[in-house]
C-alpha cells in the first residue's frame, strides 16, 4: 500500500511538472516569436539607394569642379581667345566624358544605373587697366548672362561722358558723365546716382547697382541701372559697348560674362580677353529597383 501511494504521488508530481513545463514553453515561444518578428520588420527594407544617389551626385560635382579648376589654370591668355577656348573646352569635355563614363561603369557593377549628359557654357573675362578711350569699344558679344561688370572711372579727364549700351538690342543704356567734381550715372535722361570724386577714381559696379568712391563709400543706383526692365538678360543675346561722346574718357573695365557663342570685342587684344568655363550643366539620372532620381545641377567656373 505504501508503495502504491508512493507511485501515485510520483505520478502526480510528474503530471503537474509536465503541465508547468508545457505552459512555460508556450509562453517562451510566443515571447520570442514576437521579438524576432519585430526585429525582422525593423531591419527589413533598410536600403542605401538614396544615400548612394546623393554620394554619387556629390562625387560627380567634386570631380568636375576639380577638373574645371585644373584645366582653367592652364589658360595663360597669350593665344587668341578662340584658340584658347577651343583648347580649354576640348580638355574639359574629354575629362568630363572620362569621369562620367567611369561613374557609369561603377554604377553598373553595383547593380544601379547612372546616366548623365553634360553641356558647357563658355565664358569670357574681358578686362583692361585704365586707358583713355576715344572710340567706341565693344567689351564682349553674344552674351546671355553677366556675372560681374565693373568700370573704374578716372576723373583726370573732366567734362566728358560715355554711354554703356547693349548695342544689339538697344533696350538698355547707362550714361556716365565726369565733371570737375562729380561722376554721374543716368539712364534715359534720369539721374540714377552720383558721387563726389575728389580727384580719385570711382568704381561703378553695374551688376549690383552701386557707385563706389575711393574711400569705400557706396551709393545705390537702383534697379534701373541693372536688373530692371530693359536690362540685358538671357532672353536674348546682347553685346556690351562703351560709346564715347565728348572726347576721351579714362576707364578700366572688368567684365565676367557667358553665352553659348560668346566672343570678345574686336578692339580687345589677346591678353585682355580670357576664356573660361562659365557653367558646366549635368543632367543626372540614378535608377535602382526601388528608386528613380533625376536632377540637373550646375558647376560654375571662375576665370584665372
Amino acid at each position: 500500500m505504501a508503495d502504491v501511494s508512493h507511485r501515485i504521488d510520483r505520478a502526480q508530481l510528474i503530471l503537474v511538472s509536465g503541465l508547468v513545463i508545457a505552459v512555460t514553453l508556450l509562453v517562451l515561444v510566443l515571447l520570442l516569436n514576437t521579438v524576432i518578428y519585430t526585429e525582422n520588420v525593423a531591419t527589413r527594407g533598410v536600403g542605401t539607394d538614396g544615400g548612394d544617389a546623393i554620394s554619387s551626385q556629390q562625387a560627380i560635382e567634386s570631380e568636375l569642379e576639380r577638373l574645371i579648376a585644373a584645366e582653367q589654370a592652364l589658360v595663360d591668355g597669350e593665344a587668341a581667345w578662340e584658340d584658347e577656348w577651343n583648347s580649354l573646352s576640348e580638355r574639359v569635355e574629354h575629362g568630363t566624358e572620362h569621369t562620367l563614363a567611369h561613374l557609369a561603369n561603377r554604377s553598373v557593377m553595383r547593380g544601379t544605373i547612372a546616366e548623365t549628359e553634360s553641356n558647357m557654357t563658355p565664358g569670357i573675362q574681358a578686362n583692361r587697366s585704365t586707358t583713355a578711350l576715344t572710340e567706341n569699344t565693344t567689351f564682349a558679344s553674344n552674351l546671355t548672362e553677366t556675372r560681374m561688370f565693373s568700370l573704374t572711372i578716372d576723373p583726370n579727364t573732366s567734362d566728358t561722358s560715355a554711354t554703356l549700351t547693349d548695342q544689339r538690342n538697344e533696350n538698355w543704356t547707362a550714361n556716365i558723365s565726369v565733371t570737375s567734381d562729380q561722376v554721374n550715372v543716368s539712364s534715359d535722361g534720369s539721374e540714377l546716382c552720383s558721387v563726389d570724386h575728389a580727384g580719385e577714381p570711382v568704381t561703378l559696379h553695374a551688376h549690383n547697382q552701386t557707385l563706389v568712391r575711393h574711400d569705400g563709400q557706396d551709393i545705390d543706383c537702383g534697379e534701373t541701372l541693372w536688373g530692371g526692365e530693359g536690362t540685358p538678360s538671357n532672353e536674348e543675346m546682347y553685346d556690351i559697348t562703351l560709346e564715347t561722346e565728348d572726347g576721351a574718357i579714362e576707364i578700366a573695365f572688368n567684365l565676367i560674362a557667358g553665352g553659348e557663342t560668346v566672343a570678345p570685342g574686336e578692339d580687345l587684344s589677346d591678353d585682355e580677353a580670357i576664356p573660361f568655363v562659365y557653367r558646366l550643366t549635368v543632367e543626372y539620372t540614378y535608377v535602382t529597383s526601388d528608386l528613380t532620381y533625376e536632377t540637373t545641377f550646375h558647376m560654375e567656373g571662375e576665370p584665372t
Partner: protein
Amino acid sequence: MSRNRAISVTLDYVLMLSIAMIVLASVVFLSGHVVDGQLNQGAEEELTATGESLAADLETAARLTEVGEEDTSVRFQTDLPRQVSGSSYDISVRENELELTSTNPDQSVTVPVAVDAIEETEVRGGPLVIELVDGQLEVSER
C-alpha cells in the same frame, strides 16, 4: 492501524483530479492574460518599426529633393508589410508625423518624421510609393 483507514480510493482520485484541473485552469487563465499582453505589445512594436521604416524612407526622399537642383524628380518604392499581427493597418501621413492604426488588436502609434513639405493623406499599409509632385512629397499605394 493504517492511516488510510476510512479514505476511499475514489475520493482520493476525485480530489487529485480536481486540484489538477484547478491548477491547469488557473495557469491557462493567467497565460491567456500574458499572451494577450504580449500580442498587444508585439503589435505596437511592429507598428512602430513599420512607421520608423516609412519615416526613414520619407526622410531619404526629402534629402534627395534638397540635394537636387533643377528639374528634380524622385520616385521611391517602399515595401511595408501588408499586415501587422495578422490584421491590416492604416497610415495617416501628416506634416512631421505618421500615425499607424491597426484594428485587431486596436492599436495606434505615432512616429515623428523630419519632413515639412509633405501632402497629408491616408493610405492602407503595404507596398507604397513616395513621389515628388510640385515640390511636395506624396505617399500613395502601389
